[in-house]
Structure formats: C-alpha cells, structure tokens
C-alpha cells in the first residue's frame, strides 16, 4: 500500500463527491425559480440513493469477478471482502475501500447528470425508482465492460475516466428521457430562462474543481500520469470555453457567461476519456473543438424538437462521443505506455475500436433507459400533473419554496 497514492485517491473521492452538489447548482440555476429545489433535490438524493445501491450490489456487479465479459459476480455484495487492505486485482496500492468509494462517486454523478433531461417535470418518486433501476441495469454493467474486466476494456477501448461509462451513458439515457417524458408545457412558445446564472457558474466552478479528482484521480496514483491528466483536463476546459464563446459570438453576436460555463463543462466532458492518453497540446485542440461541437449539439435540440431541458444530450452525449473519438485520434504511447496510439500516431485501428465502444455504449444505454422509463411509467407514472408542473416542483413535490427575499 502506498501512502501518497492513498491520500491522492481519498482526496480525489472527496472532490468527485463535491461535483454532484456542484451539478445540483449548475442545473438548479438553469431551472426556473419555482423548480430550483426540485432540480437540486434530484442530484442531492442521487448522492444518497445511488451510494446505497452501489455498496449493496452495484459495486459487485461492476467490479466483482468477471462473468463472460458482461457483468461482475456477487462476490462483493454488501461490501463483503472490501476492506482496509488493498485488492491487488483492482488496485494494489490503495485500500480496497478507497477504490470502492472513489468508484461510488462516479456512479452517483452519472445518475445525477441524467436529471437535466427531465428537469421541471418528473415526479420525485418516479425518479427514485428510475435511479435504482438505472444504476443496477445500466451503470453497473457498463462500468464492468470498461473498467471491471469486461469486453470493452479487453477489446482495447480507451476510456481514461469515464467518457463512455459516465458521459455517453448519461447522455444516451437523457435522450431516452426527453423522448419518453415529452416536452414541458409551453416548450417552444414560452421563454425558459435560467433563473440564477451566478448559481450556475458557481456550479460549473465546483465541477471543474472536482473534475481534477475525477480525471487525475483516475490515474489511481500520484505520478506523472496523474500530472498529465490534470493538465489536459485544465486545458481542455479552458479551451472549450474559448471554443464555445467564439462560435456563439459568430452565431449570435455576443459571448455569454452561460456559454462560458457550458463550454467549460463541454471541455471537461470531452477530455474525460482522453485525459491520461493524450498530451497537453492535443488537449488544447480537443477542448477547443469540444466547445464548438457541443454548442452545435445544443442547437440540434431545437431542430429535432425534443425537450432535453438542460442539454444533457448536447453536452454530455455529444461531448462524450467527441472525447472518445478524440482519444482515438490523439492518444499516444509516449503519454501513457499502457494506452495506445491513436490515428494521428499511426494507429487507425484505435479509432475503429473507439467507434465500436461509442455505438455499443450509446445503444445499450439508450435502449435500456427507454425500457426502464416505460416500466416506471407503468408502475407509478413519470410526469407530474399539468397543474403541478405549472405550480412548480418545489411546491408540488416538496412543499417548499426556494427563496423568500
């Protein structure tokens, strides 16, 4: 066991946990005032509920002994055998509990990310059930495929910190949610304007801060690779801000603060799979393009006329896909010897592998999310009543109001 690595992952886990309330603020500020608490609550409760599912069975499904490359076994059920000693198969340098809880925080935020798609209209109870099912049947298997010894990792797909597991999966689930739940009342006619952008920027800042734990921590050791991941993460975020507001300036004539905050998140998403495989200069290109691509992704929604309220598809879905492709382009063995070279370093095959992982992840998450949503809809109904939607989630779901100035 290595003390320095242990500190690093403990603190990284704390940073990643902090991201979920950060996301709550990011999303909460984008909602209308009457839905601020309902929106925040969905992320906050994910922190509670997904953590429980994770320690009871989710972790075991993801990291238990591999069964056919598809799923983990039940050997870690209820944290059996997950103790203060390292588990050499998973991470020999840190206590097994640290590895488990670091991974827990990823499961939590992935579920929280999805909530942006159905903001302002989902029943609280329905979300709870959805969260449990989705963690179990979508997140845990996917996590196993990529990091737990499953087929996708074995195939050689590169996903440093969760481009597929976290972002594409939540983005695809978000699309399913937007389609199944349908549009908010008045969508396309009324203005849906963020009620508190300073709150959203604060959330973006916390996300950025926490993302250092997310990406650099994914090196699982305090070494040069972590340093590389830290730097690429920072640069991609910075560049995606510039990318987003440049495109925005050209398209609408003004760079916006929300654009900067959204761009930062887009860049962080895109660099997630790549952080430990590409070099700093590549991350500059990757990030800048991420800003532009996700801006376009957000516009798409108006074209296709689905109501992905807070743009999870445009930012996490597309951003994740671009990140996975970008990894296939820019990855270099010089950066990470246990990674691979990408197209620009002469290995076209990697791009193809990345493509397979994208298609598989998106299809799997979209289809299963769709099915889960339909089941929840039948069991307890997904949407609040029209009247409750009009009143807002805060009063109708929680009997509270956000502000009394």
């Amino acid at each position, binding site marked *: 066991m290595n003390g320095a690595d242990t500190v690093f992952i403990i603190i990284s886990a704390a940073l990643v946990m902090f991201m979920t309330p950060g996301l709550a603020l990011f999303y909460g500020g984008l909602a209308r005032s009457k839905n601020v608490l309902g929106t925040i609550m969905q992320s906050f409760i994910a922190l509670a509920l997904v953590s429980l599912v994770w320690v009871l069975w989710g972790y075991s499904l993801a990291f238990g002994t591999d069964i056919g490359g598809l799923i983990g076994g039940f050997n870690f059920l209820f944290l059996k055998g997950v103790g203060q000693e390292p588990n050499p198969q998973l991470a020999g340098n840190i206590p097994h509990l640290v590895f488990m809880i670091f991974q827990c925080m990823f499961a939590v935020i992935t579920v929280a990310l999805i909530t942006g798609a159905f903001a302002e209209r989902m029943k609280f109870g329905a979300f709870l059930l959805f969260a449990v099912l989705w963690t179990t049947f979508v997140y845990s298997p996917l996590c196993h495929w990529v990091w737990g010894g499953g087929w996708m990792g074995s195939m050689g797909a590169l996903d440093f910190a969760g481009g597929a597991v976290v972002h594409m999966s939540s983005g695809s689930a978000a699309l399913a949610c937007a389609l199944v739940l349908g549009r908010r009342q008045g969508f396309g006619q009324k*203005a849906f304007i963020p009620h508190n952008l300073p709150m959203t920027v604060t959330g973006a800042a916390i996300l950025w801060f926490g993302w250092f734990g997310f990406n650099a921590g994914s090196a699982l050791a305090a070494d040069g690779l972590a340093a590389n991941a830290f730097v690429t993460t920072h640069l991609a975020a910075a560049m995606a801000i510039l990318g987003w507001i440049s495109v*925005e300036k050209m*398209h*609408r004539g003004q760079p*916006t603060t*929300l*654009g900067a905050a959204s761009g930062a998140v887009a860049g962080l998403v895109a660099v997630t799979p790549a952080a430990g495989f590409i070099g700093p200069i590549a991350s500059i290109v990757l990030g800048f393009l991420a800003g532009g691509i996700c*801006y376009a992704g*957000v516009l798409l929604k*108006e074209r296709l006329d689905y109501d992905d309220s807070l743009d999870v598809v445009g930012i996490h879905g597309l951003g994740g896909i671009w990140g996975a492709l970008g990894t296939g382009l820019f990855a270099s063995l010089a950066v990470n010897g246990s990674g691979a070279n990408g197209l620009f370093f002469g290995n076209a095959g990697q791009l193809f592998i990345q493509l397979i992982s994208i298609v598989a992840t998106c299809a799997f998450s979209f289809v299963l999310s769709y099915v889960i949503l339909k089941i929840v809809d039948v069991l307890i109904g997904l949407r609040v009543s029209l009247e409750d939607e009009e009143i807002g989630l805060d009063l109708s779901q929680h009997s509270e109001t956000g502000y009394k100035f």
Partner: protein
Amino acid sequence: MKKMEIIIRPSRLDAVKEALTAQGCKGMNVTEISGFGRQRGHMEIYRGAEYQIDLVPKIKVETVLEADGLQEVVDAVLDAARTGKVGDGKIFIHPVEEVVRIRTGERGVNGL
C-alpha cells in the same frame, strides 16, 4: 386631493424624488414595475436561443397631494424625468376621496 402616478426610468428616480420634495411633497411610494409601450425591450441569449423580452424595468412613484399647485408639480416632474428618448414614461392624475394618517387618525390634507 389628487394622486399622481408617475412612471419613470429607474435612472431618474433620484431626480424625481428631489423634484417632488422640492415642490413640498411630504411623502411618496416607490414600486418596481415592468413597463410595456413604444420603447422596445431587448434580446437575451441562452445557449444559442434568442428571447425577445418586451417588458422594460420601470419605476412607479405615487404621491398624494393637494389639488392646488398640481400643475407646477407636474412640470417639475416632467423636467426631472425627461431624457427625450422613447420610454420616458407617463404621469397619471387620479382623484382621491379621502386620506387618513394611521398614526394619528388625522384626515384630509392634514393626513398627508
């Protein structure tokens, strides 16, 4: 007695307040409102979507005063509130039937 209801730009509040007190107005109420009129509103942009906001922030000043000398007060307010650009606002004069000062119960002009 009359009630003057004055709709102005927020930036003119201080000037109007001074003009009114200079004219001997003993009190007034100030409310933030949104106005709609000839003045165009503005565009806002959120994630590439443009929204036309046609309500413009305005301030409503209300003061109840004696009918005598009303015109002078109106003129003073016009001076203080005018910028000459569309959206300067309006003055409305309404009748008032009775005034009571809550603290003392005084009525009419004494209640002001």
